[in-house]
């Protein structure tokens, strides 16, 4: 793992030295709070199509997919008496 130390407002460029508009990725340290529970705010510029994810979100998705494959052999019991849940427009319900 490459370890760099940056100050707030400094930047890192990844995958060529091109700016984001030309295929590179730029990360800027926007703010940082100190201490072991400290938070770092990062600003990231990347080309469209580059997916930027918090790692724990990615891990949760992978686990969900693994569960889905493990359970895929289950025969679905009769669902005709059940109601399909829907997401309604913009009211934050369900």
């Amino acid at each position, binding site marked *: 793992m490459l370890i760099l130390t940056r100050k707030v407002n400094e930047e890192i460029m990844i995958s060529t030295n091109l700016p984001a508009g030309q295929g590179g990725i730029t990360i800027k340290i926007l703010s940082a709070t100190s201490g072991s529970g400290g938070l770092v705010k990062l600003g990231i510029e990347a080309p469209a199509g580059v997916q930027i994810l918090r790692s724990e979100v990615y891990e949760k998705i992978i686990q969900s997919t693994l569960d*889905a494959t493990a*359970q895929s052999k289950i025969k679905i019991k009769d669902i005709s008496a059940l109601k399909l849940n829907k997401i309604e427009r913009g009211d934050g319900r369900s």
Partner: protein
Amino acid sequence: MKIETIQFGEVEFDPEQTINFSSGIFGFDNLKSYLLIKTDDDLFYSLNSVDKPELAFPIVGIRVIDENYPSEAGHEAFAIVTLNSDPLKITANLKAPVYINQEQKSGFQKVIDSDKYPVNFNLFSATDVSTNETDPLNTGTDRMG
């Protein structure tokens, strides 16, 4: 071409019917080729790997759950479903949808980073009224269009 699937037994298909996922699916990045198989009920499909036929994901079309789901031109949005012997515990992953372009036979998976769409969305609830709402594909025509 033939593969032996777990759900449907031996399936024969034309290689041109396969859907190409150039980036694979999260967790299975090296598997790029899938068959989209319709199941007996009208709700679920099976996305079955061609290269590893024992690998299959049940998927559901997201449009019946959310008409306003983020769309991708030419593609239909599907959610990977985690089945359960208790149907009330069946969940769909609305956070990492699979988009499939059936005409071009291509697909990709993407993450929707919004709190509105969870990884584990419960697909079904018991009907509280035992009369009308027994059709899971009820499109809710009482809503404003």
